[in-house]
């Protein structure tokens, strides 16, 4: 997926959770991505955030710790 599109999708999710109670926001983003993002999308997310994280909503960055890193390439 194009990096811009992936960033856009992650930020869109973050935008929703920004309005949710503060203590649930990061966990909400992480849960959502864990539930609906296929490993190669999560893998790309980590590749991008590991490199710089530029362009991502801060809420996405703070959710990273709770997002499951995909297992090695199948």
């Amino acid at each position, binding site marked *: *997926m*194009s990096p811009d*599109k992936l960033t856009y*999708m992650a930020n*869109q*999710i973050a*935008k*929703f959770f*920004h*309005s*949710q*109670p503060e203590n649930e926001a990061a966990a909400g983003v992480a849960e*959502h991505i*864990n*539930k*609906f*993002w*296929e*490993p*190669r*999308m999560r893998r790309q997310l980590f590749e991008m955030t590991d490199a710089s994280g530029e362009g991502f909503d801060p809420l996405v960055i703070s959710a990273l710790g709770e997002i499951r890193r*995909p297992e090695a*390439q*199948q």
Partner: protein
Amino acid sequence: MSNVRQKDFGTPASREDETVTLTVDGRQITVPAGTSVMRASAEAGVGIPKLCATDMVDAFGSCRLCLVEIDGRRGTPASCTTPVADGMVVHTQTERLKKLRKGVMELYISDHPLDCLTCGANGDCELQDMAGAVGLRDVRYGYNGENHVFARTSTSGETNPRYMPKDESNPYFTYDPSKCIVCSRCVRACEEVQGTFALTIESRGFESRVSAGMHEDFLTSECVSCGACVQACPTATLQEKSVIEIGTPEHAVVTTCAYCGVGCSFQAEMRGEEVVRMVPWKDGKANRGHSCVKGRFAWGYATHKDRILNPMIREKTSDPWREVSWEEALEYTAKEFRRIQHQYGRTSIGGITSSRCTNEETFLVQKLVRAGFRNNNVDTCARVCHSPTGYGLGKAFGTSAGTQDFDSVEHTDVVIVIGANPTDGHPVFGSRLKKRLRQGARLIVIDPRRTDLVKSPHIKAAHHLALKPGTNVAVLTAIGHTIVDEGLFDEAFIRERCDWSEFEDWASFVSEERHSPEATESYTGVPASELRAAARLFAQGGNGAIYYGLGVTEHSQGSTAVMALANLAMATGNIGRPGVGVNPLRGQNNVQGSCDMGSFPHELPGYRHISGGETREIFEKLWGVELDHEPGLRIPNMLDAAVEGTFRGIYIQGEDILQSDPDTHHVAAGLDAMECVVVHDLFLNETANYAHVFLPGSTFLEKDGTFTNAERRINRVRKVMTPKNGYADWEVTLKLAQALGLDWNYSHPKEIMAEIAATTPSFANVTYEYLDKAGSVQWPCNEAHPEGSPIMHVDGFVRGKGKFIRTEYVATDEKTGPRFPLLLTTGRILSQYNVGAQTRRTANSVWHAEDRLEIHPHDAEQRGIVDGDLIRLASRSGETSLRAKITDRVSPGVVYTTFHHPDTQANVVTTDYSDWATNCPEYKVTAVQVSPANGPTGWQRDYDEQARQSRRIEAVEPAE
């Protein structure tokens, strides 16, 4: 005919609880109070002669044939208009009655042609039956008097001014005025059942005639061709052309319509394996004996010459197709899929289940992906329609489905219809809704367009909130604001059924000034006073029900809007009883079922997440394989992965993603990048232009199975003809699985249903035997709900406490500007269905031969566009050209079109923006520009050429 014709009790059933006992011809019978003597007699097995009465409509009492004598009463009352009374003693056959009836029939027949033997209704004519029933042997008046029968008078040969020729303008039925007895059943059916009021009786006395519109022909009148009048007609006056052509049916099979999510039950009336006609089944619980033009008449695609009946393969999509045997096609597919997986990895292939196929077929496709491909790359067209419903209602209530049955609307006092146009998209439900509105229920329409429901004969919305496309969440949150601000919420319900602290959190959120109708008015376009009035009406008007469609879900905030609807229903206590609820109007016939059957990449059948070890174990044990615990790719993700090179093969059953999915260029690029695209369909659809294997599909008439409609109702689909392509779709998937080396054995879809029931708690008690007995059942159907669940969340929400969720409005990034100053929204029309693959191959195209762009006169004038002009519709994604239709149904700044025709392909214009939670595309908002055009766009020309090339089929060498 007797084994085909549905029993007609003469008048509708009474709904009274109290019962009354009477005697009819010496037989005692107990019926609900309010029942007519005619119906009570019919229930006792006594058929009173009748002509103007049918149980489709209220009693009328005009034909004077159903007279009876009642002990202690004077005269001979009409049994259709006389209600039963306790102890009543009725005689249906006396000397006096015999004489009266014979006299009435004599008059009728004196003005009726005697061409029974060559008449289309021969053998299925109530007038003929009644002539027989009353023993009519002679007509003393002769046939030469004043009449409506003959074009010329028999004596002088002059033109008969009363004669009217047959109207054959409607493609599906004829109107022959010479055979009309003016019983008015058709007029009443049009009013009471369909609610269109297209028919009337013009003039009076002997001059009385049935007239469509203002003495127009049927096709150009307001008639919507639902068929109710034809069904009601006791003679050949209104008659299906198929019956005229073929003859009367000899057997009938009850089955389920394969068009929209209403899921109407039909009697397929057959002669051998030929369908003579489809007649709505009175006992069908979704449609209660009604139909629309699609289900009733538009089934001719099943035998259309365009159907592909032999499997075909080709190595490159630039090659012509080569017809091959089933074995070769399946072997080739299996080999290719295995090669791709070997080369690019286990997750490099996937499948798409069809929301037009049966539950059993859908279940098999997802099983093939999970157990055969060993990944979870399976998705379905709900991705592009109601996936936000799944997410939103799942979060709020704990399960992803409408809360009510369709009967519920009969108990509704206030209806919100948002982002749905039921009179076009879900016509039979639309008729049921209109019936309730005519009885006095109030209506709030939230829609950028002035849909027919806003104002049509005898219907007027109390409020039409004509919001700007893309502002649903702001409007719904402002309604929430008003409810909290003005103290209109149902505290007792919320305290008992929901989490009070979550409600408080939501209440304080919506209470913020920025969510007030006054603050949001500037960008939603909805006047604050109107919004407040609508909110008050919904909160205080009695039973409040919400019906919604894709105008809610197909937005970048689709899931948020669904949650906002759930909030409103909970805040006003409108959940868990008849007449209320949150009701998604589902698009396709089995989109509910395909979701239930585990078509989504993240969940197994019954909406259980794939990460749940316990659920996986149920299937792993049964299927003997280990399942991937990671979610798979959704359709747009598959296409992205294809372009990127990690996704190379796909099995698509009954779905045309190239036409139906957004941003056509991107879909085409994705498909083009794949090495093995398998399309399993009735026709060479648009997606098939990019396919390497074509597996011919079967229609709903050619297979057994079940569909689940928008009310969670599981209806039987029954085979009435042998599949023309050789196999039902479930058999094709089965054979593909076997070719892939899977040990699958099913000899009938009921065995697949048994597997579904064994693995899915909400289907635990569903069996074909039960469905045959009960007619249908609404899931959950299990030990706790052995007879199914017409209404959900009755004693508590599926998730326990109902969850209030904050719904912050986030404007879409698709914004108008100088280049693209108008907002395009898309939708459907009554006569066409979805991508049109089926309906375009029927006579329905006379009503809608092309997609048109609706544009406001103001916007048209500014651009120098006249009605019917060819215009160019452009967005940042692409451009297409189509004809303009100038109308003030759309507001200035908004344009609208349908997506039924591939040569227009509105989705060339739609963008790749999608719902934040589910990736459901934002079809309903695209910034566009409209300008005059002088021909098809370059894209349209290229596409046409490419489609023509890719549909070539190699001539087969003749056999020696």
